[in-house]
């Protein structure tokens, strides 16, 4: 019972706030007669959302797929390269400045270039943009995690004459795991943002980003906002999924 009460107490205040804000928004739009190109009302957005639910859903699926593929490939690449860099000092020394440079590049700015590389009809460029955005935080956090092995654990492994492979399995990887998940959690939002924004720069008209630009260009502001809600839903879905995965894997950890 108290768990339910706790959940209600946790969920209720933000829910009330949200409802209040939406009501105030609608009220302001009606009372002040704000023109829709400045700010459409929530009622108008909701009716667009209902009317276009199927195209919004399929557009969200396309963007979500691009982001998921980017998260997966960028994540795997980040973890693997971090493992190599942790094992070989030379690779780390070579990669460090490149990764720093890459983290400074606004990756979506590469989208137009990638579209011409992969062909304008292909989704590849968007996956690549998402993967690049994902790679940096996953690589950096994983590498940091791999260096967190406590001196006492290192001594213990040596005293037990553990092979490098045993040491990795028993201590190094479990130590790094929470860091990998921190990187992935950050990266999951980046993957969605990058996939959506990459669609603004061209490519096939398929994902939520493309439809946001089209709707806005056609002065269909309420519809553009409805697609924005679709993008938000994809972002929340990704964040929730990685958080749940993190909780499942790190169930039994102190702190």
């Amino acid at each position, binding site marked *: 019972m108290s768990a339910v009460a706790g959940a209600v107490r946790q969920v209720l205040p933000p829910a009330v706030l949200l409802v209040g804000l939406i009501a105030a928004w609608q009220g302001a739009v009606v009372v002040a007669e704000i023109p829709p190109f400045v700010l459409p009302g929530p009622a108008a957005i909701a009716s667009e959302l209902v009317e276009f639910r199927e195209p919004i859903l399929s557009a969200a699926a396309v963007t979500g797929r691009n982001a998921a593929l980017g998260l997966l490939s960028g994540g795997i690449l980040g973890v693997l390269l971090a493992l190599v860099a942790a094992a070989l000092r030379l690779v780390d020394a070579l990669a460090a400045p490149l990764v720093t440079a890459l983290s400074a590049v606004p990756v979506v700015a590469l989208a137009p270039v990638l579209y011409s590389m992969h062909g304008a009809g292909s989704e590849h460029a968007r996956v690549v943009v998402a993967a690049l955005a994902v790679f940096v935080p996953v690589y950096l956090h994983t590498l940091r995690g791999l260096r967190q092995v*406590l001196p*006492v*654990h290192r*001594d*213990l492994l*040596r*005293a*037990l*004459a*553990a092979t490098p492979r*045993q040491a990795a399995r*028993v*201590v190094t990887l*479990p130590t790094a795991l929470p860091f990998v998940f921190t990187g992935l959690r950050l990266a999951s939002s980046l993957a969605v943002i990058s996939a959506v924004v990459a669609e603004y720069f061209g490519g096939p008209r398929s994902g939520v980003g493309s439809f946001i630009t089209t709707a806005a260009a056609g002065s269909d502001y309420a519809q553009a906002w409805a697609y924005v809600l679709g993008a938000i839903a994809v972002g929340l879905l990704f964040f929730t999924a990685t958080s749940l995965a993190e909780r499942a894997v790190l169930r*039994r*950890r*102190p*702190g």
Partner: protein
Amino acid sequence: MTAAVSVDGVSRVYGTGRAQVVALDDVSLTVEAGQFVSLIGPSGCGKSTLLRLIADLDEPTVGTVRVFGRPAREARLAHEYGIAFQQAGLLPWRTVRANVELPLALAGMGRAGRRERASHLLALVGLADFAEHFPDQLSGGMQQRVAIARALAEEPSLLLMDEPFGALDEMTREHLQTQLLRICAETRAAVVFVTHSIPEAVFLSDRVVVMSPRPGRIREVVPVTLDRAGAADDLDELRTDATFFDEIAAVRAALLDGVSVAQAEGLG
């Protein structure tokens, strides 16, 4: 019978040139099989360094270290010793049982054998009821007992302990000392025990090796003649025995011999 540990003319120097630090200078020491030897001295006297050399966690600059007649490295690779550190160093994502089983698992022992051995060891350190707990659910003293059980996992004939009770409160400390003596009597393992507590060294040891700092040297080896066999029923009675206080005074005199107290405490 080969000695458990024989250290011969060992020096350990860190760094080079002006930054050079002599941690150990020409140290020789023999620990017979089944013997309990404590290394005591102020901070910087090289007692932990000496233990790490025996464990082959570090290598001497000059001299040889042999464990049961073999070079330290071979002995380590052959799992000849068990080791416990000042920090328990348990793996927090493993249960108590899985932590104790770790050395056995790395040595390739089967699941059933590991389970049985871990149960026995946890009973030995009085933690049978906590096998499925995780380390963060245990107190510091209990974690240290798990670490000792882990050190005993492969039935080593040599136990190396680096201030294992250093971070514990006095009550827990005395309790664990008594348990350790009981375990040693049962397993007949030789022990090299680093400490900076004089009563602890005297209570536990057959011989107390008193060391001095800068450079780290053995100043004196004090034999302890407590009648542990006679007090087997209640080892704690030894703590109020007159001999106990005499031996403490002897070790104390050796420690302070020719040094001011401030220097002996590592402040000088």
